């Protein structure tokens, strides 16, 4: 691994206090380089979603350290003042369901993020259009989300996650609602985008079909991560 995409050291998360306290994350250590796609797998209740929420700066960990690029964002406490700005500018999200904004067309669904960051509408749309072209949904820019197929919606969601060129993308079971062919296409896109945009991508998944595609995997079990090498091959 070269450079720093995201590095997590000894991350912990405890819910509740005293006798009722639950340690959802006990010892999480991860490192994902820019341009790398890693898988995060584990059984239900193992702490995947909690980890994703911590990485996404949605909930506060109980301890540990997180470094994003060259910036320490958490070190036994947030080191960033505005977590919203962090989420908007430094972290891309791709969800299990695309969760596109139903009242915005495809172009504005993607362009919304840079607009929120203060980029002018025209420029934001130009960037969004280029990204959608790269993801092969450029012909659907004027469509509303409900008019898209599942695969198209997921590609638009990926474009939304990538539009602000974040150093890290968190993908929460992005292939769950897709058939094998489309799921594989999404993983290919994520790999391509990771390389072309030099982005570190963490894919949380249960999907047996796509697990062999990761070169590195993190297993999480009882709140503890274990790194292992994957096959890194596409069918």
């Amino acid at each position, binding site marked *: 691994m070269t450079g720093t995409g995201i590095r997590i050291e000894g991350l912990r998360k405890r819910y509740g206090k005293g006798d009722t306290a639950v340690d959802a994350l006990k010892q999480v250590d991860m490192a994902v380089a820019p341009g790398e796609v890693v898988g995060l797998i584990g059984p239900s209740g193992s702490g995947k*979603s909690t980890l994703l*929420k911590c990485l*996404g700066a949605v909930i506060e960990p109980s301890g540990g350290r997180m470094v994003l690029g060259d910036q320490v964002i958490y070190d036994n406490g947030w080191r960033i003042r505005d977590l*919203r700005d962090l989420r908007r500018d430094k972290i891309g999200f791709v969800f299990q369901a695309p*969760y596109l904004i*139903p*009242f*915005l067309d495809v172009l504005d669904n993607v362009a919304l993020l840079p607009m929120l960051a203060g980029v002018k509408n025209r420029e934001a749309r130009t960037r969004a259009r280029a990204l959608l072209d790269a993801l092969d949904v450029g012909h659907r820019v004027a469509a509303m989300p409900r008019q898209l197929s599942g695969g198209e919606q997921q590609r638009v969601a990926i474009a939304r996650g990538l539009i602000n060129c974040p150093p890290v993308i968190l993908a*929460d079971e992005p292939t769950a609602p897709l058939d094998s062919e489309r799921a594989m296409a999404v993983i290919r896109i994520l790999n391509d985008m990771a390389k072309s945009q030099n982005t570190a991508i963490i894919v949380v998944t249960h999907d047996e079909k796509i697990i062999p595609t990761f070169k590195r995997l993190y297993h999480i079990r009882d709140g503890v991560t274990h790194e292992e090498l994957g096959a890194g091959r596409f069918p």
Partner: protein
Amino acid sequence: MISLAGRDILHSWGKFVFTGVGLGLLIGVTLTMAGVYRGMVADARALLDNSGADLWVVQQDTLGPYAESSSIHDDSYRSLLTLPGVAGAANVTYLTMQVGRGESDVRVMVVGLANGDPSTPGWPPYLIAGRHITRGHYEAVADVSSGFALGERITIRRHQYTVVGLTRRMVSSSGDPMVFIPLKDAQQAQFLKDNDAIWQNRRRTLANPALNPPGAPRLAEAVLASQTTNMSVNAVLVTLARGHDPSTVAGDIRRWKRLAAYTREQMEGILIGKLIASSARQIAMFLVILAAVSAAIVAFIIYTLTLDKIREIAVLKLIGTRNRTIATMILQQALALGLTGFVVGKITATFAAPLFPKYVLLIPMDTLRAVVAVAAICVLASVSAIRMALKVDPAEAIGG
């Protein structure tokens, strides 16, 4: 930055428009109710303006002639004319009654006019058709809202009158159209009893030894004559000479003539502050209820629309949208809904107002107030939806 509220409205415009129309009808009712009150006030002012009087002289200790009954001698005006500052004085009677029109009847206020010309207090100041009353009996000038036509024969008590002139905006404080007839006819209509009652009265008088004592036959005749002569009017309308203070002259009348006298301001206070006060309170209650219902509807709709977007709001928050942006979106939607409702309501009220039987006056100030009230209601109504949206946890967008 694109307008999230605008896009959402365009996306679900059907729901939005139908809600806006429903709200608009409610706002239309509210505006019309306000217009009804304004119409009542305008009618009261028109009644005073059109009487042409500076002072209203009525029976002592009464609030006549509009708010209470009043009866004074019809020669009182002569003594009033002798007072300093009094330029003119004319008797007048007012009687609200059903006036026959063929097989049906119409509720009107019959006004008895003293002999004179259109400059005489009490006379309608202008006509829109026909002429003024020129004969001593059985001619009438009617307000056009009565529905009477020129040349039409109408029945007041047992006499028939010909409508010779039509006027406009001459209504009582309760909105009944006025019909002007000669004073003598009006006195008869108001005070003269029917033939049977007169006959009964005469029989009782003649049978009463105190009123018909043996050896004094002319006493009974005098008593009978006084019983069937109408020497009362409801009020005397007084005009003042230039430079005289109405309050001073009214004070002189109260002091020297033992009558009640009201200035224009006092009479307006009686009409608006007492006569239509309860109606105004009634309307105010309706306005409060309608405002509350409107607020509830806007709040419910905005809350529901927001509830439908919980997941999208969570996603928006997760990707870094500020609370201010989300709150603005909800607030803008509420205001847009209110604006739609207001436009529909204003159009509805404007077209519906002339259809009401009584005068409905829609004034620009009320429209402005309504805009402000609707905006305030929408802001208040959006509070619960905004609070709910701000409480949405961005973590809801992430599974698990």
